[in-house]
C-alpha cells in the first residue's frame, strides 16, 4: 500500500510486519494510552495477553494487602452471619454480608480512607433511616460547602451557609 495523504503509512501489522493492519487497539494503563495496529490474525493471538490488564479485583486485593492492617486479633475474626473470615476478605476483596462492615470495621476503615479519601457517607439516606440521619448528613454537607466557600473567599455564600447550619443544628453556638 502507498503512503496515505495523511502522512502515516497505510499501516502494516506491527507484529508480523506483513499483513495490512486492520485492527487498531487502544489500551489505557494508568494515564498512558498505547496504540497497537495489528492484522486480524495477530490480534487474535495477542488478545489473550491484552486482556491481562489487571482487573479491578486484582487492583483491589493488592490495595487491601497494602493498606488493610494485618492485625493479629483480626486474623481470627469470622463473621457469625455469613462465615467470611477477615483473611478471606483480604485475599478476595469481596465482603460476605452487610454485617461485615461492622465486624471488620477496624480493618475496613483505613482501607476505605485510602480508597475513597473518606469513611463517612454523606449522600442519599433511605427514608426509613429516619429524619435524624438526614439532618446529620445535610449538616455535614453544608459544612463541606461552607469550607469550600471560605476557601474560595465567597463570604456572602459562606454567611448564607452558616445561617442554614445554625438553623438545622438548632444551636447557634456551634461553629465550624
Amino acid at each position: 500500500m502507498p503512503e496515505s495523504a495523511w502522512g502515516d503509512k497505510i499501516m502494516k501489522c506491527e507484529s508480523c510486519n506483513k499483513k495490512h493492519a486492520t485492527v487498531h487497539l487502544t489500551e489505557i494503563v494508568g494515564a498512558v494510552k498505547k496504540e497497537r495496529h495489528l492484522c486480524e490474525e495477530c490480534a487474535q493471538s495477542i488478545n489473550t495477553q491484552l486482556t491481562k490488564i489487571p482487573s479491578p479485583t486484582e487492583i483491589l486485593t493488592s490495595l487491601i494487602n497494602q493498606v488493610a492492617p494485618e492485625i493479629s486479633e483480626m486474623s481470627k475474626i469470622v463473621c457469625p452471619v455469613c462465615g467470611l473470615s477477615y483473611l478471606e476478605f483480604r485475599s478476595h476483596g469481596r465482603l460476605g454480608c452487610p454485617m461485615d462492615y461492622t465486624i471488620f470495621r477496624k480493618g475496613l476503615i483505613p482501607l476505605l480512607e485510602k480508597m475513597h479519601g473518606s469513611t463517612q457517607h454523606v449522600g442519599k439516606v433511605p427514608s426509613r433511616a429516619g429524619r435524624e440521619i438526614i439532618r446529620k448528613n445535610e449538616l455535614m454537607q453544608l459544612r463541606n460547602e461552607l469550607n469550600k466557600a471560605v476557601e474560595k473567599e465567597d463570604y456572602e455564600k459562606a454567611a448564607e451557609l452558616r445561617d442554614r447550619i445554625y438553623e438545622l443544628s438548632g444551636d447557634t453556638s456551634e461553629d465550624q
Partner: protein
Amino acid sequence: MSFQATPVKISDLADNTGEWLRGTGPESDIVISSRIRLARNVARFPFLSRANVKQKKELEEVVRDKIREAEITSDLRYINLAEINPVDRLFLVERHLISREHAGGEGERGVAFGRSETISLMVNEEDHLRIQVIRSGFELREAWKTIDEVDNKLEKKLNYAYSSRFGYLTACPTNVGTGMRASVMLHLPALGMTHHIEKVFNAVMKLGLVVRGLYGEGTQVSGDLYQISNQFTLGKSEKEIIEIIESVIPRITSYERMARKALISENKEQLEDRVWRSYGMLKVARMISSEEIMHLLSQVRMGVNLGIINDIEMKTLNELFIFTLPGHLQKLEGRELTSLQRNIIRAAYVRKRLEKAESLKG
C-alpha cells in the same frame, strides 16, 4: 401491576434500539450517552458471593416481585438470565442492559427493563440489585432525577442494607456509600488523532475520575469511545459527584472541538480524505472485523459532525456501533456465527444500512 404478559423474545429487541442511541440531547455530537447506576442490597441477606443456591433463588424472587410491585413504569419486562442462551445474554450486554459480569454470572439472576431501554434493573449481579438509567447526550442530571425516583419507589418495598456511617452497603467496598457510578460516554476521535488524549486522562484522573473503554472495567478502547466515571463513592454526595463530572465534560468537549477545528484548518484535504476513505470502505468492503468497523464508524461519525458527509443520520451511525457487534449480528441472522462469517455478514449489513440511509435522504 405486572410485567408485560408476553414473554420477551430477544429477537424482537433486535428490530429496535434504546432511546439513548437516538443521537439527540445536549452535546450529542461528542457525548453519546449519560449513565448512572446504583448498587443496592437487601438487608438480612448475605451478599451473592456468600449466598447459597436457595438464598440466591429467594433473592431473585423477592427482588423481582418488589420491582414489579414498585410500579416503576407500565411497560417493564423481565428476563431470567439463567433461562436464555449465551448469545442472547451477549446481546443484552451489547445493548448496555446488563453488565458483562451479570451475563457471565451463575445461578438465578435476571433483568427488568422498559420498552425505551432507558431504565434497567439487574437482579443478582454483584449486588442484589443494580439500578441503571441511560440517556442520550449529556444529561446526567436528568438521569439522576429518573434513577432517584426509581430508587425511592423501590426503597418503599425493599429493606436496603444501609448504615449511617458507610451508606449503602455493597459487596465490594469500592462501591460503598452512594453505591453510585455516574458515567458519560464520549466520542473523541480528534483528540486521539492529535495525541492530546493523554492530557485529558491526566486532568480527569486528578479529579478522582476514571477513564474506561466502551464496555466498562478492563475493556479496551475502540472506536475512539471513552467512558468517564467517578472513582469514589464514599464521602461525597450523589449531587457532588455529578457536579464534578458535569464540570469536566464541557472542558473535554470543547477541547475535542478545538482539535477538530485545528485538523480542518491545517489538514483539511487529509482529514476529508480520511473520512471519505472510511466511508468508502464501509460501502464496498466484503469483510469487516469488529475492531475495524469501530475505527471506520468513528471516522465517519466525525465526518458527519463536521459536515463533510451529509447523507447519514447520527442515529443510524450510533446504531451501527451496536448492531454490528457479534451478539447483535447473530441475533439478526438467527444463528450462531463464526468470526469469519460475522465479518462477512457485518460488511453486508453495513452496506445495506448505508444504501437505505442514502436513498431515504435522497
